[in-house]
C-alpha cells in the first residue's frame, strides 16, 4: 500500500502538472480537492482517465470520483481493491 501511495502521488504530480509540488508535500490523508493542491473539475476528470489508463478501473458515474478522490489514501485503497492491471 505504501508503495502504491507513493507511486500515485508521483503520477498525480506528473499528470496534473503540479510542477512545484513534491510527493512529500501531499499528506496521505489530506483532502485532494478544495484546498492545498488547488485542483479543479478538469483535474478530477483527468484523475478518472488516470485510473483507467494505469489501473484499468473504469468509473461508471463521474460523481463516484467525489468519494474516491477524497484523499490519496482513499484513492489508493480503492485502486488496490479494484485494479485490473
Amino acid at each position, binding site marked *: 500500500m505504501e508503495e502504491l501511495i507513493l507511486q500515485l502521488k508521483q503520477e498525480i504530480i506528473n499528470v496534473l502538472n503540479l510542477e512545484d509540488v513534491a510527493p512529500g508535500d501531499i499528506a496521505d490523508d489530506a483532502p485532494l480537492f478544495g484546498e492545498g493542491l488547488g485542483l479543479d473539475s*478538469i483535474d478530477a*476528470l483527468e484523475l478518472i482517465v488516470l485510473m483507467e489508463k494505469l489501473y484499468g478501473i473504469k468509473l461508471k458515474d463521474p460523481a463516484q470520483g467525489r468519494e474516491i478522490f477524497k484523499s490519496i489514501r482513499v484513492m489508493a485503497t480503492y485502486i488496490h481493491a479494484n485494479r485490473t492491471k
Partner: protein
Amino acid sequence: MIAIAGDNIISSLGFTTDENYRAVESGQSGVRLCSPFVGLPEPLMASMIDRERLSDSFADLSPRADGYTMLEKAAILSVGNAAAQAQVDLSGADVLFILSSTKGNVHLLDENEKGFSRDHIYLWHTARLIAEFFGNANEPLVVSNACISGACAQIAAMRELETGAYSYAVVVGVEMLSKFIVSGFQSLKALSPEMCRPFDVDRAGLNLGEAAAAIIYRRTDGKEEAGEALLLHGAIRNDANHISGPSRTGEGCLRALQILLQEVAPGDLAFINAHGTATAYNDSMEAVALASAGLSAVSVNSLKGYFGHTLGAAGVLESIISAHALANEAVLPTHGFKCGEKERPLNVVDKITHTEKTFFIKMLSGFGGCNAALLFKKNTKRTPPCHTQ
C-alpha cells in the same frame, strides 16, 4: 445600421432556412442516435447533416467537388443559398467574408485521413477557399472564440460595415462532428445519453450538432426595409473565472446583457434565445445572469433540442431561426423542456406563442469564460428613400 439581406441553414433538419424553420415550428428534432460514430466506444446522440444530400447539392452547385472537405462544401453551399436570396454578387470589392468555426477541418489530423493537402487544417485556408469560390479577393476574417464565435462574427460584421469599409458582410458559421470533437466532449462528461433538455430540472448534458449557417448582412445607410431583421447591438464579456466552468454568478453573461439593456427595455423583448446547452452548469449560470439582469419574466427559449449544440455555427444558426420566428410573430418552444428548477425560476417557453413585440436577444457562452449577447429588432416600417441624417 446593418440588416439581414439573406440567410441559409444547412442542418439535419434541412438545407434551406425555410425547411429548418418549418421543422422547428412543427416540433421536429434532428437529434438522433448516431452510433456507431467514427469508431468511438460510446453511443452518441447527435444532430448530423445528411452527407449524401450534401454531396449531391454541392455537385449541383459546382463541378469542382474534389477539392473541398464536407465542412467546406456545407459552408459554400450555405453561403451560395444565402447570396441567391439576397441577390448580392459576392465577388465585389465591398463584400467581406467572415468565418466562424471552432475546429474547422480538425479531423484531418487523424493519421487515417487522406486525400487533402495539409493546408486544409488551417481555418484561414478554409475561409479563403470559401471566399475564393465566390470570386472574392478580400482577405477574409476568421473568428475562433469557442462557442460564442457565431455571435462574435456578427459583431465583427457590424463593426466592419459600420466603420464604412464594406457594404456587405458574409457571416458563415460551420461545424462538422469528428472523432476529435466527440471524444473531447465525452472526456469532459458533457454529453447527454438522451435527447438534451435545456433548462429542465432533470437535464443531463448536451447533444452535439452539425450545421452550416450563413447570413448576408448589408449596411442600410438609413434605408431599412419593412420586416427586415436589424442587428442593433452586441457585446462580448468574460467571466474572468475559469477556462471551462461558467461563473456561478454569471459574471460575464450578466455584463453582456446589461450593455444591451441600455438600448432596450425588458418589456419590449419578444423573447430571449438563450445558449441553453442543457449542461447543469451552463443553464444554471444563464438563469442566474437573467435573474440578476431583471429578465426573469421575459420568455426564454433554447434551440439546442432541435439542432444540438452546433458550436461555431450555433450563434449564426440560432440568430437566423430567432429572426424568422420574430418575422412570423412567434415565440418558439424549448424542445426537451418539461419542468424548470424551483430555485432559479425562469419563464422558459414550452409551447409556441404569438408575439407582437419587435426585439429579441441572442445569448451565447463558451470555454475561455467568454459570453456574448446580441440585440435584434424587426423593422416595422420602411424608411423613406430620401432619408436625411
